[in-house]
């Protein structure tokens, strides 16, 4: 027991591990709450599209010496707008519009970062797979700030966002501004992705949005319960992933995602094996 305590507590003597801890807890909760809305609206693919689209924003912000988070957020919002534009102006299905936009954005991002790498030392892998142990104090401030902001907005507009997610037409008929709610949700998703990219990386962040809420969805019947239990799974995954990253010297993103997937696997097996009746 004491050995376990040392295993968990000793690394936290280091400032970089304390910063990692804060970010891990923040994104565990944030991703599960926002991801719950994506899950129930069947918008997992959109989350994936937006996350890949962050990359060129990161690269351009780096080239211009701007804040990376702002650059990534702008790119995320731009890609959402572009997807919506293609959908509304052509008969293409949403998945095709998303596939076209996110692969184009992602390709541009990779290209730009490769160009940057010729002049400066910048590790592409950190953006793709996350580097939780390398977050700076400024990163922590941004991530915690975004988390407080997004969770606050979800709490304030929970009943409207939930009505809209469940029955957009009914919500519109009742006089709710459904277009604004939809865009608001996209903006919250973009913010969440931006906050998570340093820890999990743009390639794998989708797993943090979808897997913990999906695990909770197998176990509890109401949306706010999915969010709460999903947060617990999310935080558990990001903390265990953080320690795996520390002790095994592996990228944090894959480690976190594998733990989250293990939770899901257990819940899924439990559901299949112990199904009543």
């Amino acid at each position, binding site marked *: 027991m004491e050995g376990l305590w040392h295993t968990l507590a000793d690394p936290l003597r280091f400032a970089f591990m304390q910063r990692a801890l804060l970010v891990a807890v923040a994104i565990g909760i944030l991703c599960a709450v926002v991801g719950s809305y994506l899950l129930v609206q069947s918008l997992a693919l959109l989350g994936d599209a937006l996350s890949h689209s962050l990359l060129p924003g990161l690269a351009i912000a780096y080239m211009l010496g701007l804040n990376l988070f702002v650059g990534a957020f702008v790119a995320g919002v731009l890609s959402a707008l572009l997807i919506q534009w293609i959908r509304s102006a052509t008969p293409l299905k949403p998945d095709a519009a998303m596939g076209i936009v996110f692969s184009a954005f992602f390709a541009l991002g990779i290209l730009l970062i490769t160009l940057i790498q010729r002049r400066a030392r910048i590790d592409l892998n950190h953006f793709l797979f996350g580097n939780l142990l390398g977050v700076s104090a400024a990163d922590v401030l941004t991530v915690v700030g975004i988390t407080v902001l997004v969770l606050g907005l979800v709490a304030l507009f929970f*009943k409207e966002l939930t009505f809209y997610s469940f029955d957009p037409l009914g919500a519109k008929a009742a006089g709710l501004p459904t277009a604004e709610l939809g865009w608001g949700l996209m903006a919250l998703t973009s913010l969440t992705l931006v906050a998570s990219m340093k820890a999990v990386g743009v390639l794998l962040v989708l797993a943090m949005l979808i897997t913990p809420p999906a695990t909770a969805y197998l176990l509890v019947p109401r*949306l706010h319960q999915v969010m709460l239990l999903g947060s617990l799974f999310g935080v558990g995954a990001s903390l265990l992933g953080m320690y795996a990253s520390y002790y095994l010297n592996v990228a944090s993103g894959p480690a976190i995602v594998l733990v989250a997937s293990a939770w899901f696997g257990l819940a899924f097996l439990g559901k299949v094996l112990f199904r009543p009746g």
Partner: protein
Amino acid sequence: MKKPAVSLPLRPASLVVRDLTVRYGKLLALERISAEIRPGRITGILGPNGAGKSTLLKALLGLVPKEGGEVRYGGQVLRGEQVAYVPQRSAIDWSFPATVWDVVLMGQVRAAGWLRRIGPQGRERAAQALERVGMGAYRDRPIGRLSGGQQQRVFLARALAQEAEIYALDEPFAGIDQPSEAIVFQVLRELADAGHIVMVVHHDLGQALAHFDEVLLLNRVLIAQGSPQQVLQPQVLQRAYGRILPLDLAA
């Protein structure tokens, strides 16, 4: 600023539609529909598949863009809080993580207002609405574990909780059991008797005769409006359906 618990008597206003035209891309879904839908009666919107019945209901409520024409309620543009809309059951994802109670409470979201919780009064109204459709015992049941008829009654309860002036239901009787159907018809009758506008998109012509006071027969254009006895005549129906229907009106 709280509303009184007992709803005020409705001013008897009609929903007046003039030259309503709706287009989906190149497809003309509705062409120059003009009609008056009066309060105090159950109005059925009937017609063949693809006639634009659901589209008409949505266009009346401003849920799809109009290409032309106008809709007025008591001379004014319709406002969201005046309307309770029940979508087709097939348009809803019933695996959504919500209980019966969660769904009925949605009927009070608009009334509670932004940044406010639904208060005790709103909860009381939602509970009464649930009792009224005979679903009080199912409060904590996940909506995915209800029968079709129970799901429809929960949505009707949500509409009742909205305390609207106009009730618009899209195919509420599709695939539901006999007891649920009876309850839904009874509640709609009570709403009409209380002076509300009640509009129902429906596919069963035989039932229309028994339950509707007024019928709009539609096939992209308005074929006929009147009492079911007037409208559901073979020669009128032929203009909507393009053929003589083997309709057993005595049923």
